[in-house]
């Protein structure tokens, strides 16, 4: 199996580290992990190279996760890249909005490594 290249987008550097650690604790074999602090940085990262999976927060300064997702789906090279929202957002409407734009799922903070594994593993199966 190809080791997936993953983009983690969150304005909290601590949360980015926790998401990465949770992916490793879940037993997933990982390739490059790239971090971005907001949607603008994330768009720069996806324009620099493709990812197999993107995990993105919603509530971020500069450009939030919804706007990032909206712009991401218009980039030809990113079509098919699964995006999972990782958020404290308790609002169903924000989550539904993300799913309607193209997100493949969401994980609510606080989360356990098992919850990350459960959501992410099926999306990485296509790399087998």
């Amino acid at each position: 199996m190809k080791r997936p290249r993953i983009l983690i987008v969150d304005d909290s550097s601590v949360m980015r580290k926790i998401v990465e650690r949770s992916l490793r604790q879940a037993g997933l074999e990982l390739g490059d992990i790239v971090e971005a602090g907001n949607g603008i940085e994330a768009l720069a990262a996806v324009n620099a190279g493709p990812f197999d999976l993107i995990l993105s927060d919603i509530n971020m300064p500069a450009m939030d996760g919804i706007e990032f997702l909206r712009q991401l789906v218009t980039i030809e090279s990113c079509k098919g890249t699964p995006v999972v929202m990782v958020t404290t957002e308790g609002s169903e409407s924000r989550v539904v909005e993300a799913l309607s734009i193209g997100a493949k799922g969401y994980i609510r903070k606080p989360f356990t490594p098992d919850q990350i594994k459960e959501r992410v593993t099926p999306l990485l199966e296509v790399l087998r």
Partner: protein
Amino acid sequence: MNPALDAKIQTAVRPDATWGSLLELATKEVFQIMLQSDLNTRPKSLEDVASGDTTAMVGLAGSLCGVLSIRCASRTAESMAGRMLGSVGPVAASDVADAIAEICNMVAGNFKGKISLLADHCMLSVPTVIRGDDYEMVTIADGEQIAASFGYENGVIWVSLAVHS
């Protein structure tokens, strides 16, 4: 006229008797899941005034307007950050601020998710952290204040929700 704002005003939510226990539960769940730490609720007392040189705050706007804050001593905040990061050594000051901000954000999100009328009609701000030896938190909120304090390792954590009427 702003239809979105009107809709939020029409669904304005006021605190009720369950909110105190929901705030406690939301806080305990975040610490249990993200820090693998069981918090102990301290008995309520009028003398129990929040103190400590580190405060994180998250604003709420929409059907509920107010501020949720978490206050503790810096050594307590450092311990919380270390647990979150799985770090045994010293934690960088920037990571300590980031960690307590994210804990505050998660408590606010978890709390509002437990109240159906808030979940879809209340937005959270990006967190703010204040650090210093001598400051007093004064909120202009003119509504209720819901507060709880918890024992955490050898320190105390104060959590409060100040509601604007």
